């Protein structure tokens, strides 16, 4: 039968590409059924298991090149394929590293009871949702099918929304509701784009779309709908209205996961569609529009962060601003130095994830200790909470884009690409953005040098400080690992502007 012919011989080694999705999706319902019984060892084991499967897949991709799996044995276009190239693996590693460290923080936070959540059984609620979120993120990063990406993104969105509502305060639930409605609208616009693509192309496979010549009269509106839907989910200015309340009012570890990872998932899909599934469909003006909106995000987000009165709001607005950088790269990818710009964007996404998650955790620790996070009332916090404050400092360095952070390397690569392609205004925007982030980071750092007050502080459990510090150190050190990351990215890299000659396909 036809199917048997198309089924490849069984590979000698295990299909880790499947396990990276299946393990978290299997662990999540088990964690839900377990409730509080034996949750801690199970959660630790499953986190490490997922991380190990990601490591194994990364090793496989590095050694053997792009990995594919034909789910159900059918293969595209009838079936769905999983597809792991260097970019997917980098995103998976970003998720696993951030996820494991934030899990440690969450385990401490939700074990406290009363502080972050109203109830002591927070862990029993956090774990199933986080494992579902993790599985959804991995599914997004590995999917090679337009509609499957829709379902995977829904899994991500719904678990992210539920995690925000774990804070159980009125503002948090209201923010979660707003987030959910915005995300639902984004998904539906995306789905309409999928409908338009399928109605003329007859396939949902990203690879097949990349090979085919899109129907000229339909592809641009379809791509526009896909882009608007995903931009809404990524909180691109001016569609960012839902992000600051949701990220600022979620429990701290959730804020870290949302700002670091969740917004990257929809951006990743956008990135794949523009440069792999529909290369050359969007006119240059469209990519320019995205860059202009990215500029708007940097300016608007930074100004809001400079005015924020609460520490967690400041960090949330900083996310709006930093997401703008990701969109500055769109007009650069087609030009000379396009491959470098493409790579820089991925490196930026990863280092921002580490830095932002670390910043959020440190901010949460300060809030936990002080009982509030009003920036104006945090006088002398540096001397009184040295470990949390040190984490804030390290994360700030990475956010501002100073060496040796990966953000520094990424921005430097982006600026060079901007110069090479004669779009120097983008370089100005990036420099300006750096100044802005220095501005709002120093608003926090300056509190170290004010005379300490003698308001009592709650003790912060050691694991919370350890988690924030560990991730901040990782964020700072990413610059040292840019070379292997670039090697990884070359595996299966798209042929951007005919420059992606390196990388075995």
């Amino acid at each position, binding site marked *: *039968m*036809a*199917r048997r012919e198309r*089924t490849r011989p*069984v590979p000698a080694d295990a*299909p880790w590409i*499947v396990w990276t999705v*299946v393990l978290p*999706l*299997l662990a*999540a*319902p*088990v964690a*839900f*059924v377990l*409730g509080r019984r034996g949750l801690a060892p199970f959660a630790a084991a499953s986190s490490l298991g997922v991380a190990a499967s990601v490591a194994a897949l990364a090793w496989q991709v590095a050694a053997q090149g792009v990995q594919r*799996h*034909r*789910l*159900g*044995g*059918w293969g595209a*276009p*009838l*079936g*769905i394929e999983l597809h792991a190239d260097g970019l997917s693996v980098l995103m998976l590693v970003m998720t696993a590293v951030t996820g494991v460290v934030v899990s440690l923080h969450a385990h401490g936070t939700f074990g406290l009871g009363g502080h972050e959540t109203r*109830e002591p059984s927070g862990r029993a*609620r956090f774990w199933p*949702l986080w494992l*579902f979120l993790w*599985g*959804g993120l991995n*599914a997004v990063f590995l999917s090679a099918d337009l*509609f*499957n990406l829709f*379902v*995977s993104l*829904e*899994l991500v969105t*719904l*678990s992210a*929304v*539920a995690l925000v*509502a*774990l804070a*159980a305060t009125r503002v948090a*639930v209201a923010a979660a509701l707003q987030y959910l409605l915005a995300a639902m609208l984004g998904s539906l616009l995306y789905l*309409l784009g999928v409908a*338009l693509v*399928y*109605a*003329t192309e*007859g*396939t949902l496979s990203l690879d097949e779309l990349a090979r085919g010549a899109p*129907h000229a*009269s*339909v592809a641009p*509106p*379809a791509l526009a*709908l896909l882009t608007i839907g995903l931009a809404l989910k990524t909180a691109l200015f001016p569609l960012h209205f839902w992000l600051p309340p949701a990220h600022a009012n979620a429990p701290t570890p959730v804020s870290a996961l949302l700002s670091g990872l969740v917004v990257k998932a929809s951006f990743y899909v956008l990135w794949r569609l523009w440069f792999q599934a529909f290369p050359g469909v969007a006119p240059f003006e469209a990519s320019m529009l995205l860059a202009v909106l990215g500029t708007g995000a940097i300016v608007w987000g930074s100004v809001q962060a400079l005015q924020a009165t609460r520490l967690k709001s400041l960090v949330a607005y900083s996310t709006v601003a930093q997401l703008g950088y990701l969109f500055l790269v769109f007009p650069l990818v087609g030009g000379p130095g396009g491959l470098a710009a493409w790579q820089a964007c991925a490196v930026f996404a990863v280092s921002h994830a580490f830095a932002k998650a670390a910043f959020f955790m440190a901010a949460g620790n300060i809030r936990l200790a002080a009982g509030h996070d009003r920036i104006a009332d945090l006088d002398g916090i540096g001397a009184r909470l040295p470990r949390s404050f040190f984490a804030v400092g390290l994360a700030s360095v990475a956010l501002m884009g100073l060496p040796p952070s990966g953000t520094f390397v990424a921005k430097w690569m982006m600026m060079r690409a901007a110069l090479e392609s004669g779009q120097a205004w983008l370089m100005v925007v990036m420099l300006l953005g750096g100044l802005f982030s220095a501005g709002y980071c120093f608003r926090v750092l300056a509190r170290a040098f004010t005379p300490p007050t003698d308001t009592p502080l709650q003790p912060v459990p050691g694991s919370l400080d350890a988690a924030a510090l560990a991730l901040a150190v990782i964020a700072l050190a990413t610059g040292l690992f840019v070379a292997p990351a670039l090697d990884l990215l070359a595996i299966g890299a798209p042929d951007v502007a005919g420059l992606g000659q390196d990388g075995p396909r």
Partner: protein
Amino acid sequence: MTAILWAFDVVLAVTLVALAAGVLATASLFRSIVLFIVFGLTMSIAWARLDAVDLGLVEAAVGAGLTGALLLNTLGHMRSQAEFTPEPSHGPGGRLALALAAGTAGLAIGAAVWAWPDAFAGLGDRVDTHLAESGAQNPVTAVLLNFRAYDTLLEIGVLVVAVVAVWALSPMRGRVLDADPPGLVLAGFVHLLVPVVVLVAGYLLWMGTDAPGGAFQAGAVLAAAGVLLLITGRVAPPQLQAIVERGAVVLGLVAFLAVGVAVMAGGHAFLELPDAWATTLILLLESLLTISIAIVLVILFAGGRTDAAHPPEDAAP
């Protein structure tokens, strides 16, 4: 005959758009929800007109029935203050701009739709070619449980996440449901209906491999019976305290994953159903999915735990 059909299509489309506008424009929220339910039922006629009987069944049971019941139930909770509060909105200028923007976007999308080729097979021919191997005669079931089973797997994951999300909210004080005693007529009706509904669900499940129907339709119908039992007070809202209850919620998802992984041991791809086993496995999966879907939908209807420390205050005397 075609003229009559065209008249029918025109009336149906106009009705749909008018109902949608009515849902959003009517002042009373109660009326608006009733119009929304009517909208869902009208949609299921449109599905039938487009030869999408599977969707018609789901839309009527889930889109109109369950969503409508959910909305009404929520309105019952909000009734105290929300019903007639005027809705502040954009000024007339803002609304005009908004309408213009939405209309322009609609025209652009409409133009794209206009350019569709008239004859287009999509993936239909490929589905037909492999239908015999899929283990299901109903092509929609074949796509859902074999060709694109991975989508369905993740979709079941979404359903479970929804339950966990609702359950993770802290317990709510006060009533979950109207505690009006059901009365003899309703009680007798439920008594008669529930067995019939279970029978219909079984029929839909069994037929689903060959004809329109399947796990979602059967699960939705079964859930309707559950909701009836819930609102007539025959069963208490599930609190998900017992492991059995939580196990039933995740049963479909775990079974799906287990089947997908188990076939890999035989050298197949994830979720590859061997031809000889395909029909059996599909039926097995669909049966377990039906149970999970029904329970999930009932829990979503109940919408969260109640605080045991605060029994419903407005229980009927």
